[in-house]
């Protein structure tokens, strides 16, 4: 059995509190995310799991009235520190959203967008990055003959993999996935799940999911959130076979409310 305490951690929150105005959305969340593993964040709607995910690459910064206390340490450094370069942080910690959101441009330009932003101009270098990223996202074979066509012409599942490829193009260390398969059919879902499992060899994957079976199928660790609190974090098989907390058991067995 694996133990999260013996794993090497990549990102850690310490006594993280987040307020949206009066709403205390995250309460003293301390969580150590193991490197090169898939960690699933589960819990009912409004429990704070997506909010927590977004704090990991400062996607909440722009929300009006947001206030954050505590620390998020990435490689030992507080990402909310004064001289943190947020663009650089998001290069390291990429995100894929619930709804595929390719830019209204060609497949090639979608993938090349990030590297170009970071100053890469060489066509040969960009070609190389585009091919590697699309291969890593398991969609190269499906799009290699239409790289100059609009990404918007692809199916939902393909668009989502384009978004994953776009996130991978800047060579992140951590990939955040916010319900990234919830709008997809079972085949596209299983492609993305397999992809996540392959990616964990090189990246750390943190995913929010409402699909309990998905958390069971692919995650190594599961965190259960409720009303802004982290109730339980542990290896997925233990959480789903003998959770330590009654509230976790009540939620995963559908006895909630």
């Amino acid at each position, binding site marked *: *059995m*694996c133990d999260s305490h013996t794993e090497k951690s990549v990102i850690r929150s310490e006594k993280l509190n987040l307020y949206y105005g009066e709403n205390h959305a995250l309460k003293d969340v301390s969580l150590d995310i193991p490197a090169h593993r898939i960690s699933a964040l589960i819990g009912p709607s409004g429990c704070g799991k997506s909010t927590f995910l977004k704090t990991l690459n400062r996607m909440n910064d722009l929300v009006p009235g947001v206030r954050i206390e505590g620390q998020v340490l990435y490689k030992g450094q507080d990402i909310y520190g004064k001289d943190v370069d947020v663009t650089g942080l998001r290069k390291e910690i990429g995100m894929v959203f619930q709804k595929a959101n390719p830019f209204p441009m060609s497949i090639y330009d979608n993938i090349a967008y990030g590297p170009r932003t970071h100053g890469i101009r060489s066509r040969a270098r960009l070609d190389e990055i585009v091919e590697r990223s699309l291969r890593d996202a398991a969609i190269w074979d499906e799009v290699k003959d239409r790289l100059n066509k609009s990404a918007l012409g692809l199916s939902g599942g393909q668009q989502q993999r384009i978004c994953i490829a776009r996130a991978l193009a800047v060579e992140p260390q951590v990939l955040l996935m916010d319900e990234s398969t919830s709008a997809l059919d079972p085949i596209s879902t299983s492609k993305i799940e397999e992809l996540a499992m392959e990616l964990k060899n090189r990246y750390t994957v943190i995913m929010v999911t409402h699909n*309990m*079976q998905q958390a*069971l199928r692919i995650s190594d660790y599961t965190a259960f959130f409720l009303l802004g609190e982290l109730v339980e974090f542990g*290896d997925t*098989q*233990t959480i*789903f*076979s*003998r*959770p330590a907390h009654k509230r*976790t*058991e009540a939620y*995963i*067995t*559908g*006895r*909630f*409310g």
Partner: protein
Amino acid sequence: MRTDFDRQLRLLGGEMREMGVLCQEAIALAAKALSEDSRELAARVPPISAALDQKERDVENICLKLLLRQQPVAGDLRQISAALKMITDMERIGDQAEDIAEIVSSMAPGPRPETELLGHMARAVIQMVTDSVDAYLRQDTELAAQVIARDELVDGYFEKVKKSLVDIIVAGPDLGGYALDMLMTGKYFERIGDHATNIAEWAIYSVTGEHRSEELTSG
């Protein structure tokens, strides 16, 4: 929120209780047939064993349906998977009661000094089976632990049966066939005790998620 699922879990519990009752009846009848040397009583055991076979399939169907449709986790998963393992032992208990009954039906008449000792064994294993199923239904790990402890008592009885049969064989070679029949009977009771122990271990698993013989949840 999960009314239908809870109803099916109660149905599963009811079926497990009935299987437990059938097991007790089969053992009690076989033991009575032995002590009263009654072929008629012995003839009533095979139909109970057949009913247990049928119940095993019924419970299996309920469990597989629940696994497929409800995709249970945590306590629900443990309750269902424990039931799936327990019914194999319960079905075997029926077979062994039937084996005892078969020996009774074919035994030659004669003195049977060991039947009293075998009667003690029978009562002990019936109690074990009853308690192990109850422990599962009531989620009572203490009761399950008592069942597991009592298995040593049954093993002790079996040792006594063996010793006394050795004396019989030494005393008169013509009693060899009888001694073998009694040895087999004792062995079947002893095996029933082992099955009850298995059931009790699954009852504990269904509560704690930990099984005595192995770490089931490690990945």
